[in-house]
């Protein structure tokens, strides 16, 4: 187990280094931020001065080694746009996104897992067919469009919620529902599928034959065995949402979180801030994957690292 975690952490470092270097090289080789930062009529001398000030005139390799050197100390430099340390901006924006994503995940778990279990328990019923179709349709709706539709109906037409903004519980409800639809669909599908698989397995039939109660078979046996696939799906959705997938939905609802920050960063060609975001996202994704993998060992005693 210890060895496994060490190997995985090393792998995480490779991923973080890889993605950071990729983004650094691509932005510094192809990008030309000076043009966006200065007005169109800026002279060649002004452009050169800004390039020098940002350190963009040094050889690429030298810039890269400087960057990697300070990255080890978690220093991504000063954001060109906001003129404060880049990592601080990212960390400041995370609570809003974390709250939204957690609320969406909780909602999807609470709805999808019980319904998925019921559908697998009574296959072919109306509930089963409804859940299968609803989850497929839910996965096909573009989330940002669904958000706009909810705004149109519940905020503009009915006036129950605000069209956008941040701060109160009433602001949280519409974006939470919007973001919960995709994980809800994924979870419902995976719970339905893996529970049906487990309920048809030999051990479940044996358990029933020796007189175990339905509750024991469902929750004590089948759910326990289906848990690994459910956790995998939930973990991957959670990671994806935290990693900036929320951008379009945050823009729709004017949510001041990480997703909105990414969109702004791209618009302003703020390289240090982008680099801090990339680092943060890579860390979050790798950590969630690691936690999911470690949880396997607890959920399924057959898995040993």
């Amino acid at each position: 187990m210890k060895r496994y975690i060490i190997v995985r952490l090393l792998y995480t470092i490779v991923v973080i280094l890889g993605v950071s270097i990729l983004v650094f090289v691509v932005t510094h080789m192809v990008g030309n931020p000076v043009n966006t930062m200065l007005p169109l009529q800026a002279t060649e001398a002004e452009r050169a001065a800004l390039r020098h000030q940002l350190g963009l005139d040094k050889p690429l390799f030298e810039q890269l080694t400087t960057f990697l050197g300070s990255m080890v100390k978690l220093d991504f430099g000063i954001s060109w746009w906001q003129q404060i340390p880049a990592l601080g901006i990212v960390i400041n924006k995370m609570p809003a996104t974390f709250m939204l994503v957690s609320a969406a995940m909780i909602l999807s778990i609470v709805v999808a897992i019980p319904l998925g279990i019921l559908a697998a328990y009574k296959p072919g019923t109306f509930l089963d067919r409804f859940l299968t179709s609803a989850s497929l349709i839910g996965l096909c709706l573009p989330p940002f469009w669904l958000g706009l539709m909810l705004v149109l109906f519940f905020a503009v037409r009915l006036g129950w919620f605000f069209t956008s903004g941040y701060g109160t519980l009433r602001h949280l409800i519409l974006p939470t529902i919007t973001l919960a639809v995709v994980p809800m669909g994924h979870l419902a599908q995976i719970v339905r599928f893996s529970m049906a698989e487990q309920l048809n397995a030999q051990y479940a039939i044996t358990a029933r034959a020796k007189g175990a109660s339905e509750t024991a078979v469902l929750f004590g046996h089948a759910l326990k065995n289906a848990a690994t696939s459910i956790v995998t799906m939930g973990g991957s959705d959670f990671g994806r949402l935290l990693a900036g997938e929320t951008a379009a939905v945050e823009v729709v609802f004017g949510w001041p979180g990480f997703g909105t920050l990414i969109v702004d960063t791209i618009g302003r060609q703020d390289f240090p801030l982008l680099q801090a975001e990339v680092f943060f996202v890579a860390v979050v994704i790798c950590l969630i994957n690691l936690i999911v993998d470690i949880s396997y060992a607890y959920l399924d005693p057959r898995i040993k690292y």
Partner: protein
Amino acid sequence: MSNNTQQGIDEKNSKSEVKKNAFQRFLQHFSGNSLALVAFILLILIIAISIFAPFIAPYDPAKGNIVNRLKPPTLERPADGGFPHILGTDQQGRDVLSRLIYGGRVSMSVGFTVVAIGGTIGTLLGLIAGYFGGWTDLIIMRIVDVASSFPGLLIALTFVMVLGPGQANLTIALLLVGWMIYARMARSQVLTARESTMVEASRAIGCSMPRILFNHILPNVISPLITTFVLEMAHMISAEANMSFLGYGIQPPASSWGLMIGEGRQYITSAWWIVVFPGLIIALTVLCLNLVGNWVREEFDPLQKGRH
């Protein structure tokens, strides 16, 4: 795609159903799954409309009449006697239906290009990794692993940021984040096929490596790959819509479903039709692709058959 599907069908039915023509035999595969058939027909329709957009669209998608802006859907002919704006007009007085038709062209071609190029590169790498094993496999799959751990949206946005937005650059950005899944898929299929008696036999009679790879292994792994292609096309259409919505994909005056939603967003309280229809058509296209993809998986993968 239809070619390979057809091949599979031909082999299956050659003994019992000699008299039926190819189309009838193709239809037979949909028996008991009329939903997939409807999805398939709708998809063909959407693709055909996209291809023949210039002949079908009643108006120029980029030219608007500012006097005519934000007109709701109507069946009445406009004052100049042209085709009615049945889906209304947008903030610049452009016909929403025509923009949807041309937007489909952009969305479908971005999706198709990414899947075709990414699918070819990924599949080739997966075939090579799976067939040769050892170091080749280790290196290719490590690259795939690391690339899959990268945050897709952020990487795509970065590339669009430095290359500049637009259809070609968006396609490149999506390609860079969308090739890995085919490599994984192809490799896992090859690993199974490689151990089969059929491949062992061809190796024994001295077939060359490319021949075994392309004539023996590839046809046997094609159906899961087609499933992946179709489902990934749905993903890529969604991704294109997402990027264009954010303003980092297709650029005006060109039209794309995601861009229409992004541009029409601020008028949503007064002109719902600009935003509602593009979203519906994205959802419909993605749904059809999913239904067809799932059908291919169930119909042509013997392990999946009769599972649901």
